[in-house]
């Protein structure tokens, strides 16, 4: 197959646009889920909070002021077709330049510190990005940006369960995590769940699950059923909007799976706040 050339500067350009739009234009599936939540919510305080969240999304879309001040860590998923030849410079430099421009031009917050445990000095341009690169079939490059807030990321966890723990073990782990997180991750949340793989693969699956449209189901109907059951159980905890009590604690539970070792049953929960921001572009 003939190779197709893609300039890394095109990736920079697209990514800078994605950064700006992710923070101000919440997706329709998310808005729909929040509106549905407002219909379901019984707590007056919870209803008022959901109304404020919807009003906020509208203001943000109209004024291009970010919906949340935490405009996140730029998590970039690159799917690069194996017939693509990247030209014009270092790919990672191009990605970071896209983030740098996007966050600067759209007046987004720079929330990254250089050294995690000692210096903690702000890098002032929101770089580096966290980049997940995958080589896939074809001659296209797909760029997905997830702007991940710190508050909800902090409530995430991985559990190396025993095979004997089974579905019940996964269920307990996920529901307990969301219950314990309470108001911290800005409920109503979107819950990404990874099941299987290794320690790091499982966490990655949970993160990737968050990219799925709300209302989509796992293709395996047994996991689709578990998604539905977990959502009901999480919404029965009473945590509610902002943790102040109510029926709407999560908008969706999205599960992704991968084969695993005979000794293992890893499970991961990646929590996203109600501002589940992700945008994609294809070159």
């Amino acid at each position: 197959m003939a190779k197709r050339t893609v300039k890394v500067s095109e990736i920079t350009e697209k990514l800078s646009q994605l950064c700006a739009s992710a923070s101000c234009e919440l997706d329709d599936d998310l808005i729909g889920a929040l509106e549905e939540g407002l219909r379901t919510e019984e707590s007056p305080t919870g209803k008022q909070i959901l109304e404020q969240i919807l009003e906020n999304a509208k203001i943000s879309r109209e004024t291009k002021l970010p919906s949340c001040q935490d405009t996140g860590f730029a998590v970039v998923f690159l799917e690069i077709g194996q017939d693509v030849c990247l030209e014009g410079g270092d790919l990672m430099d191009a990605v970071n330049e896209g983030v740098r421009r996007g966050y600067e031009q759209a007046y987004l917050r720079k929330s990254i510190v250089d050294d995690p445990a000692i210096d903690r000095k702000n890098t002032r341009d929101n770089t580096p990005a966290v980049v997940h690169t995958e080589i896939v079939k074809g001659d296209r490059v797909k760029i997905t940006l997830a702007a991940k807030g710190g508050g909800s990321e902090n409530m995430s966890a991985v559990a190396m369960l025993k095979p004997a723990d089974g579905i019940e073990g996964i269920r307990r782990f996920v529901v307990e995590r969301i219950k314990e997180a309470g108001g911290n991750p800005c409920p109503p949340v979107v819950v990404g769940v990874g099941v299987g793989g290794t320690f790091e693969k499982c966490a990655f699956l949970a993160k990737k699950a968050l990219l799925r449209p709300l209302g989509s189901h796992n293709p395996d109907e047994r996991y689709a059923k578990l998604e539905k059951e977990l959502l009901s159980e999480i919404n029965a905890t009473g945590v509610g909007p902002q943790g102040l009590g109510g029926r709407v604690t999560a908008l969706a539970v999205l599960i992704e799976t991968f084969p695993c070792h005979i000794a293992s049953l890893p499970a991961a929960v990646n929590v996203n706040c109600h501002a589940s921001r992700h945008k994609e572009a294809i070159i």
Partner: protein
Amino acid sequence: MKRVSAPLTNSSVEDLRAGDEVLISGIIYTARDAAHKRLVELLSKGEELPFDIEGQIIYYAGPTPTRPGEVIGSAGPTTSYRMDPYAPLLIEHGLKGMIGKGQRTEPVLSSMRKFKAVYFAAVGGAGALIARAVKSSSIVAYEDLGPEAIRKLEVADFPVIVAQDCHGGDLFVEGVKKYSRSVL
């Protein structure tokens, strides 16, 4: 809906009960993780704080950069528990109110009961909406911290909910109890 003016007094704090919906107007200060670390270091050394903390409300927030011609960027609350290691000492020195999101831990709650202070929840992720309540903003300390600098804000009708009060009232506990149910 109650109206409260900031800074607060002991009696205005005592009037507030968990679950009250409140509009705050007046002067408040922003501070989050890195600024709290510095404030507590100053107090431990017996030095003066960059602003008089008596009666004040601290808003746990780090706004987005201000666009030309505007007062402030997106300005919603950050998660409060990260400030729990620092809050009791600030309350002991006169801090009367905190605005953030998520529940506080017992050492903060007991300081709130002992010294009369209140914790308000603002809606996390409503930064564009909350920005409309901010009428003026200026950096008073730690500009080098970027989004974590301490800002003095003048706010009008800032919408919050009393989450945990000085009488032991706790909406996180009471609210969740009220709406939790068995699924089986």
